[in-house]
């Protein structure tokens, strides 16, 4: 049997206020944006294999899986999302991966780079405190 190729969007969900965004709400918002931009054809083309696989509101990262080909319709609709579940929010595409494994590897690298940038901006006192905290967390493992 021929395998069904997929693409995984790694997106950053940025809510305007401190709100808890559900996975289903994000999925509904994407479908609505695709329907507005590409109509019934767009929705029908993207429906097979379309899922929000992972949504972590603390890290603001979400994975969206779509079949390869119609993923371009979703890609064009993602920047047009302005509301998720009635709350003002935007979606920013960070990366497009071909498997969940590579998506998680990218997210790990992405967070490491962000932490490195954050460490560079810390003062020496803050840096010492951060190192102590980091050692404490790592020793617990």
């Amino acid at each position: 049997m021929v395998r069904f190729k997929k693409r995984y969007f790694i997106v950053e969900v940025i809510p305007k206020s401190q709100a808890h965004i559900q996975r289903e709400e994000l999925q509904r918002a994407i479908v609505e944006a695709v329907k507005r931009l590409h109509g019934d054809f767009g929705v029908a083309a993207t429906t097979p294999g379309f899922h929000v696989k992972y949504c972590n509101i603390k890290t603001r990262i979400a994975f969206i899986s779509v079949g390869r080909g119609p993923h371009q319709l979703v890609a064009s609709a993602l920047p047009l999302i302005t509301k998720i579940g009635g709350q003002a929010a935007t979606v920013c595409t960070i990366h497009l991966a071909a498997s969940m494994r590579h998506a998680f590897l990218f997210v790990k690298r992405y967070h490491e780079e962000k932490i490195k940038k954050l460490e560079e901006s810390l003062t020496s006192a803050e840096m010492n405190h951060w190192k102590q905290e980091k050692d404490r967390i790592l020793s617990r493992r």
Partner: protein
Amino acid sequence: MKTLEPRHWYLDVHMDYSHQDLPCKMTVDLVQVVLRAAVDTMFGEVSSSLPLDILKFDSKCGKVIIRVPSSNYAKIRAALTVCPSMRVAGKDIPVVYSVQQASSCLLSLAGPQRVIV
């Protein structure tokens, strides 16, 4: 010899609807609105925002000649084929769009009709 790709396609569309059901008189502007709405439902704003010109409209027999960009021709023809109704003054009126002729040359629409009467 270099052949030039046509930029526009012309469609001779026949609108089949009941005149009694219409809440207002069908005008050229209204025809453009309902045709755009049909494309919008099927293919969204990406396709419905592209040019769609009404060159001729005969309200008695429901004949419309439209001009569309050649890149959007297939989508418009597909959307009109499957459209079941048109929304006029908040009322859904059943309509059948049948494309009688389509050509990249407007003059060829003046040729013999291939319609079974």
